[in-house]
């Protein structure tokens, strides 16, 4: 087993030695590094989670800050050069009234220049609800000026800021769900693979049944049963649990098949003969040897959870305002009139798209790298 090395490795003698003594983690990393797209996606995913972590600083406004004057203002483009020289700026708005509906219509007015700066003082916030601050990564130099990179919604909230703030909820709902999936998958898959016999049969039948269920109708049903009176936090965890209930089966199958395959490996026998207790055998010999597979398949199932949360919230059955998530934001884009007149309300979809795509690539790369001994 140890004589094999990655097929695409350089074949000089010293290199050979390096591969022989490298730990599995190191081999995995070397293999993963070669996967350009996965590396790039990993960077994107890290940036996304950083955005989620430091949302208050990155967003120019708060998630629920309304600007009653600028309702449905269109997106502004960030410019670097203008006639009077160099400097970040956007253009202001002019207002007209629709002659029939008397609604305000904002158009970008290229004569009014609004200077924009990096690291500007703006709306005060409390980072993670604890640390007070008012420094923003980007924002208008004069705090009162309108600065809406992706436009505003029906009550004048900045769409860009809301997308940034939503990242925290949308990206972590998947993580909480995945943590639960992880526990359920290893526990049930482990029992199934190690105990075997009737219990294994029963668990396998149960998994088959659950897999053949169309998830969405049941998600809808479960989510509809969450009482409206529950607090945001309760709803948040309940939604995570609901998403988990129908998605641990894949992982459980992987874990089971790995345990079955490992039972007959020489190193397991050796550990047994050395008098390892069962618990030690499982936790320090068997589990670590396929942990990378588990991590890869877990990564691949995060996007499904993010989409699930978005779909539920979008339909109004998941998270509810004042929590902002991408799905909650997309609720505004449900009516055809909103999409037709204010297409920028669809921009949270782009955030979902980027997240899901980069996580898929990352997961693919991890899966390929998970078995570094195979070419």
């Amino acid at each position, binding site marked *: 087993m140890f004589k094999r090395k990655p097929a695409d490795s350089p074949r000089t003698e010293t290199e050979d030695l390096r591969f022989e003594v490298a730990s599995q983690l190191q081999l995995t990393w070397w293999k993963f590094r070669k996967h350009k797209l996965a590396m790039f996606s990993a960077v994107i995913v890290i940036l996304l989670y950083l955005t989620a972590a430091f949302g208050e600083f990155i967003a120019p406004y708060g998630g629920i800050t309304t600007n009653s004057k600028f309702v449905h203002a269109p997106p502004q483009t960030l410019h670097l050069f203008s006639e009077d020289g160099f400097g970040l700026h956007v253009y202001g708005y002019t207002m007209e009234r629709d002659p029939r509906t008397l609604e305000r219509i904002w158009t970008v007015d290229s004569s009014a220049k609004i200077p924009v700066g990096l690291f500007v003082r703006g709306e005060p916030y409390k980072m993670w609800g604890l640390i007070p601050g008012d420094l923003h990564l980007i924002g208008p130099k004069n705090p009162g000026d309108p600065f809406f990179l992706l436009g505003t919604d029906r009550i004048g909230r900045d769409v860009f800021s809301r997308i940034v703030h939503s990242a925290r909820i949308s990206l972590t709902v998947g993580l909480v769900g995945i943590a639960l999936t992880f526990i359920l998958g290893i526990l049930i898959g482990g029992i199934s693979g190690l105990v075997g016999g009737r219990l294994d049969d029963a668990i396998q039948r149960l998994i088959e049944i659950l897999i053949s269920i169309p998830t969405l109708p049941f998600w809808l049903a479960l989510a509809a049963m969450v009482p409206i009176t529950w607090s945001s936090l309760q709803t948040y965890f309940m939604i995570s649990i609901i998403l988990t209930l129908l998605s641990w089966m894949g992982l459980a199958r992987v874990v089971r098949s790995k345990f079955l395959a490992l039972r007959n490996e020489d190193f397991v026998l050796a550990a047994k003969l050395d008098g390892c207790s069962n618990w030690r055998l499982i936790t320090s010999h068997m589990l670590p040897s396929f942990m990378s597979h588990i991590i890869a398949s877990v990564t691949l199932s995060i996007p499904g959870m993010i989409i699930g949360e*978005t779909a539920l919230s979008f*339909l109004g059955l998941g998270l509810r305002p004042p929590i902002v998530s991408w799905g909650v934001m997309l609720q505004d884009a449900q009516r055809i009139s909103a999409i037709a007149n204010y297409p920028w309300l669809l921009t949270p979809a782009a955030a979902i798209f980027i997240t899901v795509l980069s996580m898929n690539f990352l997961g693919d790369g991890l899966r390929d790298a998970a078995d570094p001994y195979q070419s």
Partner: protein
Amino acid sequence: MRQFLLRRFVTMIFTVFIISILAFGIIQLPPGDYVDQLITRMVSQGGQSPDANTVQKLKELYGLDDPMPIQYLKWIGKIILRGEFGYSFTYREDAIKIISERLPATFLLSLSSFMFVWIVSLPIGIYSAVKKYSLGDYIISGIGFIGLAVPSFLLALVCLYISYKYFGVAAIGLYSKEFANAPWNWARMVDLLQHVWIPMVVIGVGGTAGLIRTLRANLLDELNKPYVDTARAKGLSEARLLWKYPVRHALNPFVSTLGWMLPGLISGEVIVAIVLNLPTSGPVLYNALGQQDMYVAAGFLLLLSTLTVIGTFVSDVLLALLDPRIRLQ
């Protein structure tokens, strides 16, 4: 073969039984029942709360006072013996009537999406494998990744926007206004065909992308096998060789996709139908869940799942017909 069929059939029945318990259990979860809700609504509309006696009578009428297992047995018994799914509180009709109005459309739409998936992914998958690492293959893989990453309801939203922006009509519903309640005739059929392709494509995109990837991978495995070289050495034309041997092998998992793709297709159908307001199960199920119209909701959950379970059964049988190794297991 007979034994295989029998075993699979028993499994199928058992699965449906478990699903029926799940469906009924979930619907029963929230506190309060339909009568409680009715009273709240009456009170909030300014009416008076009915006295305890009336409430009791209502509950008896709807059978809401029995313990849950009894309610379940009554429910499932009626379904099996008389094909009755209970009473819809909001529509004031038999639930089966509402369900049977919507379910066939769901079935047809899922089926046509499935056909779309097969018809599109077969040639593209083969092309992609035969010309691997060509420009076309890269483009297809790229589109495939995007197709897998975009959830169907977002795609539906984008379609709504594009259809409205560039064609001036919103791609909502399955019929134009004038045909919505018209009797079946040729013009209505044409109208349906004009509308059906958007939801069909939207629902099918994810599955198509997945299937192309599977088919490409399978075919690539087969193309490297010695029997392909042998056939080529014997002078078989490239096209005949391809269709006669490797494609047939690679098709095996293709059939089994019917099983694993159906739950996804039905899920996609439900949410896309809600977004595009199609006259299928989605919107009605959604409303029924919101209003705790339990018999309608439970009926839909049960029948939609049964649909996928039957699909899995059919795919298993097809697979067994194609591949003797499976039925001898």
